């Protein structure tokens, strides 16, 4: 079977997670090629054929144009599956490709199995508490893969062939696209706020989640971070509520971290949060719910009221000090 992988390039560089697409292609046992809107001076470390459109003329975020380039690569490769990352790029482009082709899309794949009729894909549902196995009713199928679900595969050899896609190669009429002027215009980027906290460098992170209840209870989480010589992190809801700066947010749209020790206080373990911390060396979760998804990645799950447990832990740490 054949896969077309759609790589990601942004703000002058290849997005590292692009190599997880190659890992997925290998896990499927597929002959894989890649489409990338990127820089010809900087081809991806991928062994198969690469269709490269120069981001300088396409633009980094021009969804209609990117869709049309993917469709052009599909016309040339006739793949069985078209693979995106389950990312802000995949969310934007994958459904457009699926619609233009009139085919199905399977989002957030975590596992794949061959089947008699067609490939079976496994996806998480109910915030990861259950999984669902699905089968596409169309060929090809568009899929997005969950961040971190497949190990990256970085090639040591150059692409077997690099095909430059020029503006004339992308024929909107043939693609079914209607883009003469792009509907969505990228005006620029806003960098992440930087206030001197770099969670990616921290060896110990103690994070707070909705389970702590009130903003006042954050003090105990900070105290534990300090007692352990670490940094304070947080799940998204606390950042959205304004209790914690954005640069302390751990998760796929915040910081991805892998400290020696990660302590999750009152964090249920939403998929986006797990994606940001599951590679930590040792994970301790403090939570009242023993079925919380965080248990899936925790080395230790301390079950109980998070505020009472924090108080008991702090007392012991501070007495020993």
């Amino acid at each position, binding site marked *: 079977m054949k896969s077309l992988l759609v790589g990601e390039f942004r703000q002058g560089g290849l997005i590292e997670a692009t190599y997880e697409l190659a890992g997925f292609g290998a896990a499927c046992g597929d002959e894989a090629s890649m489409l990338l809107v990127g820089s010809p001076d900087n081809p991806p470390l991928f062994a198969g054929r690469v269709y490269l459109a120069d981001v300088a003329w396409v633009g980094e975020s021009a969804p209609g144009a990117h869709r049309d380039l993917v469709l052009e690569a599909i016309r040339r490769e006739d793949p069985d599956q078209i693979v995106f990352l389950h990312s802000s790029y995949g969310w934007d482009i994958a459904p457009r490709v699926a619609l233009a082709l009139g085919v199905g899309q399977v989002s957030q794949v975590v596992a794949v199995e061959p089947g008699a009729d067609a490939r079976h894909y496994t996806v998480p549902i109910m915030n990861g508490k259950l999984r669902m196995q*699905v089968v596409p009713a169309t060929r090809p199928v568009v899929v997005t893969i969950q961040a971190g679900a497949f190990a990256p595969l970085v090639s040591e050899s150059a692409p077997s062939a690099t095909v430059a896609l020029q503006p004339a190669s992308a024929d909107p009429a043939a693609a079914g696209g*209607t883009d003469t002027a792009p509907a969505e215009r*990228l*005006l620029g980027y806003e960098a*992440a706020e930087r206030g001197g906290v770099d969670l990616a460098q921290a060896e110990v992170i103690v994070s707070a989640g909705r389970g702590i209840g009130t903003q006042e209870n954050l003090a105990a989480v900070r105290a534990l971070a300090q007692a352990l010589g670490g940094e304070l992190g947080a799940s998204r809801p606390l950042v959205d509520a304004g209790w914690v700066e954005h640069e302390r947010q751990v998760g796929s*749209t915040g910081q991805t971290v892998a400290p020696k020790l990660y302590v999750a206080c009152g964090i249920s373990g939403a998929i986006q949060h797990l994606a940001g911390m599951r590679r930590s060396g040792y994970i301790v979760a403090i939570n009242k719910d023993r079925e919380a998804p965080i248990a899936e990645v925790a080395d230790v799950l*301390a079950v109980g009221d998070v505020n009472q447990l924090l108080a008991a832990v702090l007392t*012991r740490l501070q007495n020993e000090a």
Partner: protein
Amino acid sequence: MRLLVCIKQVPDLEAAFHVAADGRWIDEGDLAFRLNEYDEYAVEQAVLLKEQLDGEPELTVASLGPGRVTEAIKKALAMGADRGVHLVDDLGPRRDPWQVASALHAAVREEAYDLIFTGFQSADRGSAQVGPLLAGLLGYACLTTVVGFEYADGRVNVRRELEGGVKAVVEAALPAVVTCQLGLNRPRYPTLPNIMKAKRKEIRSLPVESLLPEAPRVETERLLPRPKRAAGLVLDGDPGEVADRLVPILREKVR
């Protein structure tokens, strides 16, 4: 100006879930339901826009699903939507994103909405497809995973949330679909007077059969439990006992 917000009612995700007898969806037996959290931000943004324009726009809220979803529609009406449309479908939770988007398209395509808001994904399925599919079917611009929104003179200017805390500033002319991410705004709690007013607002029911000739493009084989990993250690007991066992572990791991 005509505004639409598309919402989904989902189970409360704090519950324990069990697989239904046919193995293809969850057993809804004892579950509590709520308005999809991402759609709360969509409803709020639509209401904020209506307020920005001095109440002139008419705001419709639409939802596909069984009878119970009228509760979610009523919540949106109590937050400030003017009228509701219920696509009545007992199999709603089992439809694939293509079917949901197709049915919504069939229901709204004659209505010439200028702006459509919806959550970027549902908290239960998480496919993140319906918004962009609906935009594509309508031929509208589509802006996904929006954490900042401004409207002026027929154009929207948004902040799309990318990875690593970076945001893309994107603008588009109407008509457009905007899919909303957490943190876009602070969804209001419906006040009691607004809840009472909502009871008098119209909810139109459309049987889905008239809107949904489409077969699914992705079929569900079965549901599976989450894989149990080789055991992590579980500490249980009163806080003192748990702390007694936890503290030495923490000390050792930071050495």
